[in-house]
């Protein structure tokens, strides 16, 4: 396995340890299980197919890198409420528009799920059959998609009005109402991680420059 794979393995191990400490190991394991189809296909491509296969070690290395990339953000959002994250970013100087875009992106999935549930209920009330055979379900998709998409577009305009009516575009910094606790240990850990990230980038660029 390449050095990048070992680095990813360390990231996975540290993430798992943090998940155990936070009591979120089950959530992390579920996120890892979601990668099973990718792992299986990687194994098949690299070990069974005659063309392009690079072997078992490469397949495992790719999977570990994937885990290293997906598990830390999963743990972050499993342990940190989005509102806390946004408040803290704003307290650290992130602009109001950037905070809004980030907040809207984080809220987009649950909001879309809620709207989809409303649309399904409304269409069922009008007699749309959303259960039964796959053919019936497939036929039921189109009447659901159109209101969902149009509703999402209309919500953008509504949201814009809501923000403008509440002076969102006012100049200057917004008031910060709460500052989250930030211990010395957390600050040290952040600087250490940032340093490791920098070192990793330098090592990668150096490896590329040397043609490896």
């Amino acid at each position, binding site marked *: 396995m390449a050095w990048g794979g070992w680095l990813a393995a360390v990231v996975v191990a540290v993430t798992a340890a943090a998940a155990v400490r936070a009591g979120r190991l089950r959530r992390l394991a579920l996120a890892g299980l979601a990668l099973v189809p990718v792992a299986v296909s990687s194994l098949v491509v690299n070990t069974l197919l005659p063309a392009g296969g690079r072997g078992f070690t490469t397949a495992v290395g790719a999977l570990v890198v994937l885990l290293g990339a997906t598990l830390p953000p999963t743990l972050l959002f499993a342990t940190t409420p989005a*509102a806390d994250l946004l408040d803290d970013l704003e307290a650290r100087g992130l602009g109001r528009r950037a905070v809004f875009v980030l907040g809207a992106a984080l*809220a987009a999935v649950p909001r879309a799920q809620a709207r989809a549930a409303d649309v399904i209920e409304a269409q069922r009330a009008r007699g749309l059959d959303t259960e039964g055979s796959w053919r019936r379900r497939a036929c039921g998709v189109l009447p659901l998609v159109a209101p969902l998409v149009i509703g999402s577009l209309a919500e953008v305009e509504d949201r814009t*009005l*809501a923000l*403008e*009516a*509440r002076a969102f575009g006012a100049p200057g910094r917004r*008031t910060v109402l709460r500052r989250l606790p930030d211990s010395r240990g957390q600050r040290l850990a952040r600087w250490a991680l940032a340093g490791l990230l920098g070192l990793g980038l330098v090592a990668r660029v150096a490896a590329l420059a040397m043609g490896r």
Partner: protein
Amino acid sequence: MIVLERAAYRYAGAGSWALPPTSLALRSGEVVGVRGANESGKTTLCLVASGLAPAAIGGELRGRVLVDGRPTVDMAPHELAQRSGVLFDNPAVQLTGLHRRVYEEVAFGPRNLGLPAAEVHRRTGEALGLLGLEHLAGRDPGRLSGGESQLVALAGLLALRPGHLVLDEPTSRLDAERSALVEEAVARVAASGAAVLIAEHDEALLARLCGRVVSL
């Protein structure tokens, strides 16, 4: 003071005028009601009187709309929000959907103004208290009833302390007890010198609250 001088408005992309040429003047401290059938242009009048149309939603405005002597088309939306605050008929439009507690939702406007934290807390507490919403402060705004959402939206507007108020059917989802709270709040705001425009179907409420009522 809010003045409409033959103000007519057409939504972006629309062929017809949603608001025909309308003249209206609201003096400071005056509460004026607007009645009219569905589709008569009450909501459009509210958007125009608040300046959000066309400042925030585009479209074409003819005639003039003045708030405290200044044309609304010359003001930025955040400035309009402080001079002529608007409550939409659908509270879902008014709430930002960004906050997990009612308190934060109500504090959103004052925070946007960059006021000192103590002043934000004071305004938020007063707005919640004025409408009897203290018990909702910790609730998720996305899980409120229609009536509660309407009151929270109004609290968010009052926390901004706009110079004047434009209210589009502010009691449409409220029972009699809560409607009385809104009436009391509106009367108090008007007594402080604000002009208030209320579009409403409830004739009895208009009769109780408004010095005069115009029809569209």
